[in-house]
């Protein structure tokens, strides 16, 4: 059941994973319950209890600064942005009926959905939308969504049902930013004491680090939804506790089944696994401005060292897709080139770079399931090419301390994004998270042109050109796109695979129902 990973077992994995769940499977045969109750057709009513990974006493209801998974799940239940990424990762209208660029794409107009109301019954007005974006980009207290609105000069009321976004430079893809979950529309007089939005669920109660509860928003605009009357989100900091809660029937669904345990959890008749392909990626980050990574041949050699199939097999238990140093796999222009492991060429490149016996320190941290294991597998692969990689393991808070963005050779984790929004986050000089200090003049000019190019065909060519540059000499070593595996009771219906990288159908519990 547990695949033979090269990773040494930690105490927790050994005891919690092997001892607990192996024993569980062995014993499951003797005392299995009667035939599982199936979900059946959509049904109104009932309570949905969901176990969500992470969170703690710093949990928040702030629509514009969600940090942890429970924060994101709460945000997506209470609030909605103007636009919305659907399960297939395509843009769909939400609070806005339409968002359209003006000729030249230096300004965009959002038309607010007719009849849409907040939880307190008031209609959504253009003033509310303007106030929302003022709150996000407040210079004294910028929220986490603010960084992507650097080009947003102003938001103004355009008519009694529309607002106009005025940009400092043309942006043909500005609508994609409006669909991020951290841009939920709230009333102009919003306060955290009364967290009102337009989401499918109304606020009922919230205990940071423990749980939050929500009730059905009867005035919700999507017909039929939400199906359940009450939604409870319960924090779990521990994998075993979360899985045990599902298996013992204390919760109806959980997010993030560890990939090494999916087979075990799936062997229970009463439980269904929900596997989603995602565009999330787990890169190694090489800082291109420090030795030895400033030599492009060293970066190329390391990329040739990575055995991507083996990494996916061992780190993700085969549940994911290999990547070739490019992100944004769901972007229509994704290049999808090939790069095979080639230790001989890697050795040649290092010899020509004058570093035949390279010795490196890789900073690793359990920032996401699989990161530490990936570091261990990669270090083993590198040894075969004569590269010695020492692992320096730090805890998550140290990893994201002041030193984050300074590590020379480390790892990271990103969710699904299309190419240009992701490049703006991590590959441009003004990106908030330029982890690799990537600063390539030719690349920047291509991306800048792409960002403001109005002709979709020319833009597509530019996006492909930018990818070719990163594929050739970028600082990211991207080996895989992990699947997201969640689990729910067989009697829960409506949750479907979702490409955003967020768990449980994108944490959109309006879609879920429970059978009687």
């Amino acid at each position, binding site marked *: 059941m547990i695949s033979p990973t090269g990773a040494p077992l930690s105490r927790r994995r050994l005891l919690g994973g092997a*001892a607990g769940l192996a024993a*569980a499977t062995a014993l499951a045969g003797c005392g299995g319950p009667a035939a599982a109750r199936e979900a059946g057709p959509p049904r109104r009513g009932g309570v949905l209890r969901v176990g969500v990974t992470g969170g*703690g006493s710093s949990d928040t209801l702030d629509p514009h600064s969600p940090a942890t998974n429970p924060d994101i799940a709460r945000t997506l239940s209470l609030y909605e942005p103007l636009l919305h990424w659907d399960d297939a990762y395509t843009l769909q209208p939400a609070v806005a009926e339409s968002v359209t660029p003006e000729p030249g794409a230096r300004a965009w107009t959002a038309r607010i959905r007719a009849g849409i109301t907040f939880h307190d019954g008031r209609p959504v007005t253009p003033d509310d939308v303007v106030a929302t974006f003022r709150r996000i980009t407040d210079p004294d207290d910028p929220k986490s969504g603010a960084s992507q609105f650097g080009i947003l000069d102003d938001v103004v009321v355009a008519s009694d049902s529309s607002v106009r976004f005025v940009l400092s430079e043309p942006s043909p893809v500005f609508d994609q930013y409006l669909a991020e979950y951290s841009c939920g529309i709230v009333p102009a007089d919003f306060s955290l004491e009364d967290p009102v939005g337009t989401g499918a669920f109304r606020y009922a109660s919230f205990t940071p680090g423990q749980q939050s509860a929500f009730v059905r928003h009867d005035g919700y605009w999507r017909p039929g939804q939400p199906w359940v009357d009450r939604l409870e989100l319960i924090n779990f900091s521990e994998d075993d506790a979360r899985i045990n*809660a599902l298996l*013992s029937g204390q919760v109806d669904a959980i997010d993030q089944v560890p990939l090494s345990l999916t087979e075990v959890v799936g062997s229970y008749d009463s439980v269904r696994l929900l596997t989603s392909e995602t565009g999330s990626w787990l890169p190694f980050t090489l800082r291109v401005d420090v030795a030895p990574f400033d030599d492009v041949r060293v970066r190329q050699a390391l990329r040739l060292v990575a055995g991507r199939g083996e990494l996916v097999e061992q780190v993700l238990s085969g549940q994911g897709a290999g990547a070739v140093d490019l992100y944004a796999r769901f972007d229509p222009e994704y290049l999808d080139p090939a790069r095979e492991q080639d230790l001989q060429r890697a050795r040649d490149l290092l010899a020509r770079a004058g570093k035949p016996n390279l010795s490196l320190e890789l900073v690793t941290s359990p920032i996401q399931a699989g990161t530490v294991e990936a570091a261990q597998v990669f270090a083993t692969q590198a040894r075969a090419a004569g590269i010695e990689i020492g692992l320096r393991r730090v805890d998550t808070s140290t990893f994201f301390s002041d030193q984050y963005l300074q590590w020379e050779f480390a790892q990271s984790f990103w969710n699904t994004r299309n190419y240009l929004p992701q490049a703006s986050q991590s590959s441009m000089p003004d990106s908030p998270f330029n982890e690799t200090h990537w600063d390539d003049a030719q690349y920047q000019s291509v991306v800048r042109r792409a960002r403001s190019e109005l002709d979709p065909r020319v833009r597509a060519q530019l996006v492909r050109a930018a990818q070719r540059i990163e594929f050739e000499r970028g600082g990211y070593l991207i080996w895989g796109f992990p699947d997201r595996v969640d689990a729910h009771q067989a009697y829960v219906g409506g949750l479907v695979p979702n490409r955003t990288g967020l768990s449980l159908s994108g944490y959109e519990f309006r879609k879920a129902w429970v059978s009687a």
Partner: protein
Amino acid sequence: MSPLARMILRRLAVSVLILVVVSVLIFAATLLLPGDPARAILGQQATPERVAALSEQLGLDRPAPERYLSWLGGVLTGDLGYSAATQGPVTELLGGRIGASALLLVLTALVSTPVALALGARAAVRRGTRTDSAVSGTSLVLAALPEFVIGVLLVVLFATSVLRILPSVTIARPGEPVWARPEQLVLPVLTLALVVIPYVVRMMRATLSETLDAGYVEMARLKGLPERTVLLRHAVPHTIGPVAQVIALQLAWLAGGVVVVEFLFRYPGIGQALIDAVANRDVQVVQAITLIIAAFYVLVNLAADVAGILADPRIRHSSTGGGS
């Protein structure tokens, strides 16, 4: 003042001294932690001006001894400081959690003590029989298992796989106390009890065996007293001192052991808060919880000492007092 009272007072003074030393150590240890508390509180919004302002507000610009004294003063007046994660007072964060953890400890003590004493006594009285080897063998195996393994096995047996009769985690609705659903307490309490019982059983068996071999017990038997009276009036009182010590040590250990068990069962006590606080670099919460656990440790040991003193006839009847 009677010598007995003086002796107890001296133990008390020593305990207070130990607590002061512990508080210095805790404070010094958190000074050594990397990172700046003001930066930790502000997180992403840590502009240099705001860090400076908050540092002043928290008194981080003052010398360490002065900060220690003001922290200690706060602790003595019930002000445990300010939590970086919740942006509120530590007392607010810990209020309900201390009660929840205390409930776990009290229930464990109530369940484990009588069971362990009875089993230990039975094994001692029936030394060398099958009962004795069964009790001793089982307690040896249980003593060798870490609490995490016991907990996971109980969950597999009673919650998820073999039988599905008990909840595996604690989920309380907002505002609902943990004891509102007693079935959720069963597995955590049982886990802790199974960890504690073996040690007490073994100590009870060893001490009582020794006593049963002693001359005065032999004497009582020779006087023709019934075995029951010999056991309860002459043998058992001599075991109270050492056994109380072991029970106290186990209870003191429990205060730390709840951390793992609360984690496994998602029990909303101080152990879970401690893990969360360490992960968040929430320094003042870590200080407060560590101090609470240390204080509990010292107090329980003090209680055991006093019980030992009161139970020991040699000390109780001694006119000169002095050492134990």
